[in-house]
């Protein structure tokens, strides 16, 4: 790929805090290298803003900048994580854009992900869903021999594909219903498919769905927009699996714990 520099116009969502209304502001950046990542381009803009001293730099989430933590979350030109498939914003390179282009950057939009500041959203709803059931209980004591638990290859592959979910929330951002089903189903599949997760298989799916509802995410209508937006290409087959797990829990579990 040929290296080139570009000048860009950026329309970026600015919002002081949770309560304030917010709106778009337009900025110009010059001499952006096609080798930069999108976040580095925002860094350049922020340095520019700091030098000018007229307004605060733009707040945005990021941590690893290598596509594994799920913190970066920008809705770029109508697409969560921007135009490239299977890519987080931090891994999106500026060669995805042309010289002179105007780029619109918005935060994730969903009532369950309130904007904290500018492009930063509060995604702790996902943490609470994980706390509700996205774990396995392991007793203390000596570690068991790894080979003593047999795992079917096909299931382990599926579990690992699901485990690739980095909980970035792009699925919610892309979904017209603001549904979190792709995320929740990835966790339910990842843990439920493995023998280590089997003991809590039923309670897990029930508790996680209950928490998901409590957080105010929408219901899934299988339109598949989430799958296309997912930087880890989590399959919506996981959602169907969650539905099946939920149905079987619904048909076989007791109302409450009895002896």
């Amino acid at each position: 790929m040929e290296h080139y520099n570009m000048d860009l116009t950026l329309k970026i969502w600015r919002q002081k805090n949770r309560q304030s209304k917010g709106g778009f502001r337009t900025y110009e950046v010059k001499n952006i290298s096609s080798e930069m990542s999108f976040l580095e381009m925002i860094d350049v803009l922020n340095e520019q803003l700091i030098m000018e001293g007229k307004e605060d730099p733009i707040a945005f989430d990021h941590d690893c900048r290598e596509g594994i933590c799920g913190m970066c979350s920008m809705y770029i030109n109508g697409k969560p994580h921007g135009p490239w498939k299977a890519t987080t914003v931090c891994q999106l390179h500026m060669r995805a854009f042309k010289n002179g282009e105007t780029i619109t950057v918005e935060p994730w939009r969903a009532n369950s992900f309130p904007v904290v500041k500018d492009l930063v959203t509060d995604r702790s709803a996902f943490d609470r869903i994980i706390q509700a059931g996205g774990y396995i209980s392991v007793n203390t004591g000596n570690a068991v021999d790894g080979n003593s638990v047999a795992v079917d290859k096909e299931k382990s592959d599926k579990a690992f594909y699901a485990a690739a979910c980095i909980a970035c929330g792009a699925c919610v951002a892309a979904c017209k219903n603001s549904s979190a089903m792709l995320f929740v189903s990835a966790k339910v599949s990842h843990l439920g498919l493995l023998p280590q997760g089997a003991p809590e298989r039923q309670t897990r799916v029930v508790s996680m769905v209950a928490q998901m509802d409590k957080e105010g995410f929408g219901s899934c209508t299988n339109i598949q927009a989430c799958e296309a937006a997912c930087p880890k290409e989590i399959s919506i087959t996981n959602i169907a699996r969650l539905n099946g797990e939920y149905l079987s829990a619904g048909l076989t579990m007791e109302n409450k714990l009895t002896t």
Partner: protein
Amino acid sequence: MTWKQMFTSSVGKKFVMALTGIFLISFLVVHVGLNACIWANDNGKMFNVAAHFMGTTILVRIMEIGLFLGIIVHLVQGYILNLQNQKRRSVGYAVEYGNRGSKWYSRSMGLLGTLLLLFLIMHIWHFWTPSRFGGMWSVQPLSEVTYPGTQIEYHNLYAEMLTVFQNPIIVILYVIGCISLAYHLMHGFESSFRTVGVHNNRYLTLIRYTGRGFSIIVSLAFAMMPVSMYLGWVK
């Protein structure tokens, strides 16, 4: 987990949608098969006898109540879900997400369902009310026929069809109804099986192609009924 939770959580509400949807699909199979009798070209005899059987068999009449309940539950639940889901994003995007990954009709199930509902109201008024109440309450007049070899008076629903489908506007409205059905099922057929938990890809592939075939063939067959009557292919 309680029964209530099972059917009122977000996943549970979708079970209700999917189960009623699959039930309505099974009804369509019977309905399209039976109506295809008009193409026997026997001046409606086969069709009228079949309709008579449906209208006078107690088991079918009980299932008819189930059908009405199914439609009502499906559309009430559909509207509730649609409304709730729309309210989950108070501040929208400046640039819409658009088509990536999803089809327009999968995002428009509420709209397509509303078109279907309007169609159903018209359709029930055209045929169901006269056939059930025509003789009794004179809601709408309906002629009777008898066929040689039987004493039974049959509602001449076939004649009713021929009359109704002389009006080109009604024919067009029926065709629009059938197109809405085709798109509703293009998404709904596969979606309902996913909703009840089918996740084996072998089955999903089978369901996908069956669903598309079903949506197109059934809707086309339905659409051809008013069209063939209007164009005089059956008399």
